[in-house]
């Protein structure tokens, strides 16, 4: 006997939305903290710091998120010699992924601040970290807001791939319900609609901020 798609099935998918949101927020804030470090090291005077961050960013921007997830999932279970849950693997992979992208976005904004400000801070006796924290980052973060919010949209959509290793977020919940009701025609558009409800307001916000700052052609628009 097959189940029919009704309220209980819809509520199951809807309640899985919290995992999509939780995953997005953890990766965004975790990646944000690491991203500041990545951006700071990427713009540091030390060559070693610069090159290691270039390698880190290149590695995460030049490979598919799905592969990053697989390597984290299988790599962790191999290194720790235990069967690892999808949850920590997904969190680690997406956090590092976000750190690379946010770090690169913020590097661009840090470099957009005129060099004179660094020099002025130096004459006032401020060290590199203090200058970065008090003078540069507050301005750089404001410049980076449209791209940062744009990346959050990208990150929310990326959480869908967690379904591939069996983590039950919205997409996986939709798949499960589709498998028991045989109504993919109803279910997947609903799943897409839920993502749209999450992402569209953020996209509009990003566009609004971009327009207010009068920045024209942006960089690539991440898938």
């Amino acid at each position, binding site marked *: 006997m097959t189940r029919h798609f009704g309220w209980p099935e819809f509520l199951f998918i809807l309640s899985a939305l919290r995992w999509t949101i939780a995953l997005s927020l953890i990766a965004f804030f975790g990646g944000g903290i690491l991203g500041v470090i990545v951006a700071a090291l990427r713009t540091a005077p030390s060559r070693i710091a610069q090159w290691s961050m270039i390698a880190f960013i290149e590695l995460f921007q030049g*490979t598919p998120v*799905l592969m990053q997830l697989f*390597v984290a999932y299988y790599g962790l279970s191999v290194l720790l010699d235990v069967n690892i849950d999808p949850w920590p693997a997904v969190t680690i992979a997406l956090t590092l992924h976000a750190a690379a992208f946010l770090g690169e976005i913020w590097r661009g904004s840090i470099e957009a601040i005129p060099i004179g400000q660094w020099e002025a801070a130096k004459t006032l006796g401020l060290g590199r970290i203090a200058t970065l924290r008090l003078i540069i980052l507050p301005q750089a973060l404001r410049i980076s807001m449209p791209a940062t919010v744009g990346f959050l949209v990208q990150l929310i959509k990326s959480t869908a791939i967690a379904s591939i290793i069996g983590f039950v977020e919205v*997409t996986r919940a939709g798949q499960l319900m589709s498998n028991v009701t045989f109504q993919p025609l109803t279910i997947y558009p609903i799943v*897409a609609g839920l993502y749209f409800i999450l992402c569209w307001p953020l996209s509009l916000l990003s566009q609004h901020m971009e327009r207010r700052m009068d920045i024209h052609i942006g960089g*690539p628009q991440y*898938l």
Partner: protein
Amino acid sequence: MPYVFQFGVITDHLPELLYGATLTIELSAASMACGLGVALVGATAQTLGPKPLRWAIRAYIELIRNTPFLVQLFILYFSLPALGIRMRAQDAAILAMSINVGAYATEILRGGIESIPHGQIDAARALALTRFQIFRKIVLPPAIRAVYPALSSQFILLMLASSVVSTISATELTAITNTLQSTTFRAFEFYFVATGMYLVMAIGFRFVLRGLQRLIFGRQPA
């Protein structure tokens, strides 16, 4: 018992992995071409077309950009058969990738078109060029030139996103890696190497697209 890394098994299966990589390149190149076509038509219609058409294109762009590619793929491959529209996994993959990248590319190209100074259009109008002529000869060439770097980055992101089509049983590098790791039980080694292959392809694509830029637009920066 600690895990012992055995990368030797990779060399035995290198031909399969390389075949997977060529399939990924094929899928990506085909979708890039289709996506570029969609972008040209879409951006033209959005600049010159009537209001309802412009709204329809806007809706298409927003719908695609605010939903995951994986879900778009599922709708094409799992939902559409309920309406009697069936296709092979490989075709569904190319179609989904083209529709997806088409939306992003249309938006990028539209941005480039809007960045053309209005004085140029006024000047062209003073020379009695028609609306379509102005668009094709005055607006479009510098717009494409200005957005070329953004388009290239988008195409590379498309190539990376293509790994997801393995979920609908389309064959490419990720799908072949999945099969190999499940028959050899060497998951980490295979995914590690496949990741490296993607990195090489991303760098290769960037190199080729930059070369193409020089070929089309000459050496001076856009």
